[in-house]
């Protein structure tokens, strides 16, 4: 049962990572691409972490997965803003 849930959840996670990559390739400019990367990858990593957490043997491992997701979220939110701000400044300069 846990194995099935792991397969379903990690598959969902992979789906969103693929969606983020497809968005990165297909979307027209820096800003729309950032939307795709941050939001889809955030959800993809969340699903993968959840799927793997079901296989964990100790609560410490579950907490570690949660920590990885939280840190990746913080990094994604901060990086998206920095890249968007820089792209906007460059656009204004041109």
């Amino acid at each position, binding site marked *: 049962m846990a194995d099935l849930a792991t397969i379903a959840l990690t598959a969902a996670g992979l789906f*969103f990572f693929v969606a983020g990559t497809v968005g990165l390739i297909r979307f027209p400019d820096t*800003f729309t691409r950032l939307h*795709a990367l941050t939001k889809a990858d*955030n959800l993809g990593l*969340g699903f993968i972490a959840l799927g793997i957490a079901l296989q964990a043997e100790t609560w*410490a491992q579950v907490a570690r997965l949660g920590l990885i997701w939280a840190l990746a979220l913080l990094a994604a939110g901060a990086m998206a*803003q920095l890249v*968007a701000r820089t792209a906007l400044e460059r656009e204004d300069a041109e």
Partner: protein
Amino acid sequence: MRGIWIKAILHRTVLFGAIWGVLTAPGVEGLVAGLFAVPATVWLSLRLMPAHHPVALWRLALHLPRFLAGSVTGGIDVARRAFARDMPLNPGWVELPVDLPDGGRVALGGELSLMPGTLAAGSHEGRLLVHLLDTEAGFDRTIPREAADIAAILGAKRTRDGRP
């Protein structure tokens, strides 16, 4: 002012202590190193990000379900657009005044970047610049609510320049 600092030291000790515990579990020898590492991290974090605002952790916890729901709808929305044959995008910008201290504005920007259809691109003269994936979809309607939530987490004692 003093209360804010004591509260901040407590909060950050618990936070960094928990992270240290998670990283080093189940080994006991790691905890000994933590006795030095955690206070050093708290000191450094107070140097880098002084405690100007009382942070209401319970409000942060209350905000979590909304954040998770937004993450899911945001991811699904962007995936749908990426895979759609006609790729429905209608990008544009909104500018809105945000009465938050600098740290709060960065937190709001980071959060908006993960919520459906919004992306923060810094601020200009106290106004937050937000990129919308689809200007027709009403993504910007949720921004004031997010801003109010973050203001509440940072406590009511705030002024325009962010000093209590």
